[in-house]
């Protein structure tokens, strides 16, 4: 959620590139920046013991593995993120992203735990679930 209460990650409208660009410019969101980076930082803050959750949050669109896609974001504004099971919102810098040491550390630990294919399977599973939910929301 943004500080003003609007959703940042999901849209209630069908995809429209013109509208997306207009909203992105209005929000000051850099072109190409992935919202998953901010989400992953929030998940890591809320659940520091859960390396898998933070990894899946940042990689489940098939990007950012292991290096986060770099997009310059000079913004110093904060975004408030609502996480299920947590009453208070988390405030995270809009330009936040997992560091390279964090990403590589998670890749090694999770790779040992699940194996490279097992980890890729979990990422695929999450994006399938994400798409299914988005499809349901669009339909309704």
């Amino acid at each position, binding site marked *: 959620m943004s500080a003003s209460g609007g959703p940042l990650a999901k849209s209630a409208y069908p995809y429209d590139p013109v509208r997306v660009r207009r909203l992105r410019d209005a929000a000051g969101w850099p072109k190409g920046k992935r919202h998953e980076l901010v989400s992953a930082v929030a998940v890591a803050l809320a659940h520091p013991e859960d390396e898998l959750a933070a990894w899946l949050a940042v990689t489940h669109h098939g990007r950012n593995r*292991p*290096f*986060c*896609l*770099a*997009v*310059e974001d000079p913004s110093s504004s904060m975004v408030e993120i609502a996480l299920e099971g947590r009453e208070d919102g988390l405030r995270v810098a809009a330009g936040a*992203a997992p*560091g*390279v*040491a964090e990403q*590589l*550390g998670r*890749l*090694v630990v999770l790779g040992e735990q699940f194996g490279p294919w097992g980890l890729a399977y979990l990422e695929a599973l999450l994006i399938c679930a994400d798409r299914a939910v988005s499809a349901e929301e669009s339909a309704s």
Partner: protein
Amino acid sequence: MSELVLAGLRGGSPAAALALYGIASLLPAGSTVRWLEHGSGDWVAAVDAGAADLSALSVVLVDAIKADDLGSLDEVAKDINEVTPEQFAVRRSAGVHRVLVGLAAEAPLRPNGNVAITPICTYSFGTRGTLFGNAVKQDASLTVDVMRRLLAGEGREQKDVNTLGFDPSARRQDGAVIGPDPSADGVRGVPGLVPLVLRGLATVAPMPGTARSAQGGAFVRAGSHLEFRWPVLSTAVRSDALAFLVARDWSARSAAQRRASGVDAVYASTVLRDERRLAAGRRVA
């Protein structure tokens, strides 16, 4: 925090980069490595392995190298073209495996049923004769003091210490020929460097190309030459994750991507086939 500065390993040297990769492959889990800026445009390696000082770190590294029994590699070295698949499999202990991965781009089965271990240096430098023998010899002569002096930057070039063409700063020992290391015998190298470099090469082991030239990952085609390229990263990363960072060409990434990934600079060293060695490092990004 017990980060130790390795003044003997400078970021602009291909041998130092490979040596740092070798160190990372030998360190215990939880260790981190990085490069620290040292003066203007220069870097030195830094390691946090829980060791109190360079002597303690040297003990850790030498113990790990000695535990890598390269004695069986010496057997392979006797005739690298006449190794049966069974011998090859048996001899691939952890240590031997690591060195072979670094040295040999491939091990094809020959028509006579034996395995031809083709050292990467055959592709790159055109040498093979004493390659494995030199690797074993330098492992055997390694001591804690030699390692400590190398890491501290106190190592001195000595006669008959072959660098296998990996150290551009090495010189031929014949006073009449003052030139760079041609990778042949009769080279004055710094003791202790090759055991680390060979293990580090395994981290960025290139794949053979179709034209008998090894490339891929950190080995990049640049015009008619092949280059070894390495990133200088100032962010401390886990030693066991280093391969994910260094086995790729960072000069091909955007400056923003390099910054976000902790890569401060990228250096390149041309593989000089005719001279059978690596050229001095130069900054490319």
